[in-house]
């Protein structure tokens, strides 16, 4: 139950099947709600019909009515993107917290978000075509992480403290450059801000198909590393004596998480909080063993982001990043206090 020892357990904690089943049910309910509800009201029967007509239109190429288009081409890919990105961020956050043994670690620790932010800012302020924005953001995000790795490297080693410090500095410097550019290109400031806060508004099937391979590759690697992360939780020395190649493991986690996060951030913007807090919530309810923590975090992250996006598009909060932090923050504090009283 304690946050300070995220990866203390070497024996896997039970899956707590009841809780897991409940979480899966909530995720499914969230998906159904999110496809059914939106700023345009469409009756449930119509939504089901639209899904059917959407599927058949894949073969027939038939034109869809505006309502069908909304369900099939706007809501469904948007919800799918929410699940994917939420899952990605939460898994990457859990892995980072484990590998750095630091409860404050989140997927943006090594400068991915600031890099993506700078790339997007350059593209937006320069007025490049909108479809180029995520491509530039993705390249810049990967560039930023590479820079952090290069700066933190000590011979063949990657000491965690140096990584964190290098990440913070790279992040701050890139953010400062972004701010400078935003102030120079005054009239596009709001566009950049909207990107920075994260938005799933224009996530179509195409974007989803672009992000999916990165997310599956990065997330898949992390999910496979659960046992190794548990061992690493015992400390570098112990882990090494147990045969874990500590340096290679750290590099692998950093690379896998960065690839997945970079793709997510490039296409939906910098959604805060999910990657930081979801793993902590999961640890409170499921324990700290990574073989359970990582997949459950994926489910919980996906659920949170889908619900947050639903609120974002049906209430005046309007920006998913605002919702995750505004509602996620108090919820987490409440959980934390409750945990403390137990």
């Amino acid at each position, binding site marked *: 139950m304690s946050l300070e020892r995220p990866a203390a357990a070497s024996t896997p904690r039970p899956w707590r099947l009841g809780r897991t089943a409940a979480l899966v049910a909530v995720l499914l309910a969230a998906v159904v709600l999110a496809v059914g509800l*939106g*700023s*345009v009201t469409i009756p449930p029967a119509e939504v089901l019909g639209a899904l059917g007509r959407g599927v058949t239109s894949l073969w027939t190429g038939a*034109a*869809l009515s*505006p*309502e069908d*288009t*909304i369900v*099939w*081409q*706007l*809501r469904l*890919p948007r919800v799918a993107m929410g699940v994917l990105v939420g899952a990605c961020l939460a898994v990457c956050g859990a892995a980072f917290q484990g590998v750095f043994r630091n409860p404050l670690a989140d997927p943006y620790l090594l400068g991915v978000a600031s890099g993506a932010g700078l790339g997007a800012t350059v593209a937006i302020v320069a007025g490049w*075509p*909108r*479809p180029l924005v995520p491509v530039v953001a993705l390249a810049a995000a990967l560039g930023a992480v590479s820079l952090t790795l290069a700066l933190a490297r000590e011979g063949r080693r990657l000491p965690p403290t140096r990584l964190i410090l290098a990440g913070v500095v790279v992040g701050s410097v890139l953010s400062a450059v972004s701010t400078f550019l935003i*102030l120079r290109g*005054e*009239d*596009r400031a*709001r*566009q950049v801000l*909207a*990107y920075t806060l994260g*938005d799933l*508004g*224009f*996530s*179509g*099937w*195409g*974007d989803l198909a672009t992000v999916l391979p990165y997310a599956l590759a990065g997330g898949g690697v992390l999910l496979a590393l659960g046992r190794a992360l548990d061992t690493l939780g015992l400390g570098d020395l112990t882990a090494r004596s147990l045969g874990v190649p500590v340096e290679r493991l750290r590099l692998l986690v950093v690379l896998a998480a960065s690839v997945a996060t970079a793709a997510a951030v490039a296409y939906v913007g910098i959604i805060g909080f999910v990657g930081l807090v979801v793993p902590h919530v999961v640890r409170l309810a499921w324990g700290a063993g990574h073989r359970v923590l990582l997949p459950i975090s994926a489910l919980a992250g996906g659920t949170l982001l889908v619900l947050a996006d639903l609120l974002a*598009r049906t209430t005046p909060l*309007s*920006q998913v990043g605002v919702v995750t932090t505004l509602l996620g923050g108090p919820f987490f504090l409440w959980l934390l206090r409750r945990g403390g009283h137990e």
Partner: protein
Amino acid sequence: MKTLPAKTALAASLLALLPAAAATTYPLTLTDDLGRKVTLKAEPRRIVSMLPSTSETLCAIGACDKLVGVDDYSDFPQQVQRLPKLGGLYDPKVEQIVALKPDLVLVSKYGKLEAPLTQAGLTVVAVNPETYDEVFSKTLTLGRIVNRETQAKNLVLNMRREIAKVEILTKNAARKPTAYFEIDPTPYSIGPNSFMGVLLTKAGARNIIPASLGDFPKVDPELIVKANPELMLGLSRQQAAARPGWSGLRAVKTGRVIELPKELRTILSRPGPRLPQALRGLAQLVHPELFR
């Protein structure tokens, strides 16, 4: 909410005109757009304008030669282009402004210029037209401030006449297309009560954005697909077609997706004396058939 003070201000300005005095009497005390009471001891002769629309208005009422400096974005008319550029909203060059020894600095109500300049002993007035009605009331206010009341009154009359000329055409248009106006690809759009929203309606279009969403709302793309507008302004057809679910929309299929020319974009974002041109430019895009 905003219209009430605006109307009061308009009424107040019109009342002030009633004596029809050609000359402003100084000292002149007025409440500016930051709600401050400011007294001008005499007719200002060295003015710094930190808003492009203010610069344009001053020049349009014959006070261009009073300007000694402008903000980075003031570029019209040509006379202001050779004046010292004093920064923008976020990065004003306070020291340079003070060094010019202006007897009046006209600032935006946003930004933080007022405090340091007042501290430096300068007279600062915030004038910030934001709604359609305010464009006229603030023009009259500026006229009073710089002792060009008659010119300001004439400018307002002229603007109203030019606007009426366009409105006569668009009011009687056989069909008013439903329109979506995009100000940036987030997407942000404009509500019917905003400055640009009023112009869009006067240009003979039916804005698909309901007033309840506010003046500059961030719009959920679902709403736009549902409204299926006949005309889209502010983006390219290619851009629109690339968005999920938009390729089948009426405007995209018929090719009525129009990017705004740079000049039109500039004057649409400037609540100043070129408002009639902005309206005409917009009306020509909405109803090309009326302007052949």
